[in-house]
C-alpha cells in the first residue's frame, strides 16, 4: 500500500508536470505534504532548498530522497520509476515511430521547423539562469563569471567539467 501511494504521489506530478522540475514541484508538494502527510511544509522546503543547489534533475532528486525517507531503497526506486517511466516510454514510442520514416521529406522538414523553437527555448533557459544568478549573487559576480567561463569554455576550449569544478571552488571560497 505504501509503495502504491509512493507510486501515485510521483506518477501524478510526473504526468502533469509540464516543463520538468520547477513545474512539478508544487504538484509533488501537494501529494507529499498535503495528501499523504509524509513531511511538514518546513521539511519539504528544506529538502527542496538542498535539491536546488545540487546538480542533476530536480524532480528525480526529490523523488529519490522522499521515496527513501518514506519507504527505504525500494521506496526510492518506486518513486523514481513513477517520475521517470511514463513520459520516457511515451518518448521512446514516439521517436521510434518517427525514425521509421527517417528519410521521408516530412521528417526532414520537421527537423527544420523545430529548430527555431529549440533555439528560443534554450535562449530563455539561459536568460533565466542569468536572471537567477543576478538575484542570487549580484551583477558583478554574475558578469565576471559569465565572461570568465565564456573565455574558458569557448576560447580556450577547456572541458566543462573543469570549468564547473573550478567554479565550485571559487563559489566555496568567495561567495
Amino acid at each position, binding site marked *: 500500500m505504501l509503495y502504491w501511494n509512493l507510486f501515485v504521489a510521483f506518477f501524478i506530478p*510526473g504526468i502533469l*508536470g*509540464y516543463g*520538468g*522540475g520547477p513545474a*512539478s514541484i508544487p504538484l509533488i508538494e501537494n501529494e507529499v505534504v498535503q495528501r499523504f502527510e509524509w513531511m511538514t511544509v518546513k521539511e519539504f522546503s*528544506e*529538502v527542496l*532548498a*538542498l535539491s536546488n*543547489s*545540487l*546538480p*542533476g*534533475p*530536480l*524532480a*528525480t532528486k526529490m523523488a*529519490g*530522497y522522499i521515496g527513501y525517507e518514506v519507504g527505504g531503497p525500494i521506496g526510492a526506486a518506486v518513486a523514481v520509476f513513477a*517520475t*521517470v517511466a511514463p*513520459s*520516457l516510454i511515451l*518518448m*521512446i514510442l514516439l521517436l521510434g515511430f*518517427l525514425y521509421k520514416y527517417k528519410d*521521408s521529406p*516530412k521528417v*526532414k*522538414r520537421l*527537423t*527544420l*521547423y*523545430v*529548430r*527555431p*523553437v*529549440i*533555439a*528560443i527555448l534554450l*535562449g*530563455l*533557459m539561459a536568460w533565466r*539562469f*542569468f536572471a537567477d*544568478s543576478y538575484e*542570487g549573487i549580484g551583477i558583478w*559576480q554574475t558578469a565576471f*563569471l*559569465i565572461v570568465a567561463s*565564456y573565455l574558458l*569554455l569557448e576560447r580556450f576550449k577547456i572541458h*566543462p567539467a573543469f570549468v*564547473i569544478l573550478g*567554479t*565550485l571552488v571559487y*563559489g*566555496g571560497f568567495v*561567495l
Partner: protein
Amino acid sequence: MHNKRGAKEKQNNGKHHLHLFLGFFRVGVLGYGGGPGSIPLIHKEVVDKYGWLSDEEFGDILALANTLPGPIATKLAGYIGQRIAGVMGMINAILSVIMPTIVLMIVLLASLSSIRDFDWVSGMTAAVIPVVGVMLAVLTWQFFEKAGQGIGWIKAIVMSAVILVLLELAGVHPGIIIGALIIAALVKRDGDRSAEGEES
C-alpha cells in the same frame, strides 16, 4: 542501429555501456540548475564526444522531449541509452544521471545539521549557475545558426520572434507550439522544395 554481428556487437556493447555510464555520470554530477542545466552537458557528451547523435537528431529529440511532461534530463538519458544499447542501456543511462545526486542528497540531509551548512552548499553552487547559463547561450546560438542555414535567416528570425512573443507575452505553452509545428511539418504536402536543410 541493431545489426546481428555477434562477437563484435558484444564487445561494442560493453564499450557502449561504459561510455553511457561515464557520459551520463558526468552530466549527473555537473548539471547544476536541474534539467535545463543538463542539456548543454548532454549535448557535449552525446554529440561532440561520443558522436551518438547528429546535431539534427539532438534537436528533434530535444523538441519532442519538451512536448512531453516529466523531467527532461532523464527522458533524454533514457532515450539515448535505449538507442545505443537497448533496455539495459536505458537503465544504465538513467541510473548514471540520477544516482550520484540522490545518494548525495540522502547523505547530506542526514549529516547537515544547521542551516549554516546549507548556506555553504548554496554558496558553492550559486557560482555555477551563470556558467551553465553561458553553456546554454552557446547552444542557443548553435541552434539558431542551424535554423538560419536550414530555412533561411529571414524566416528563422521572423519565426523566432513570433515564437518568442507567443511564449513570453501570450504565455502559450512550448509543448503546444512544438506540437503544432510537428503536425504542420507532417501534414504539409511533399514536393515543396523551398526548405532544404544542409546535408551532413
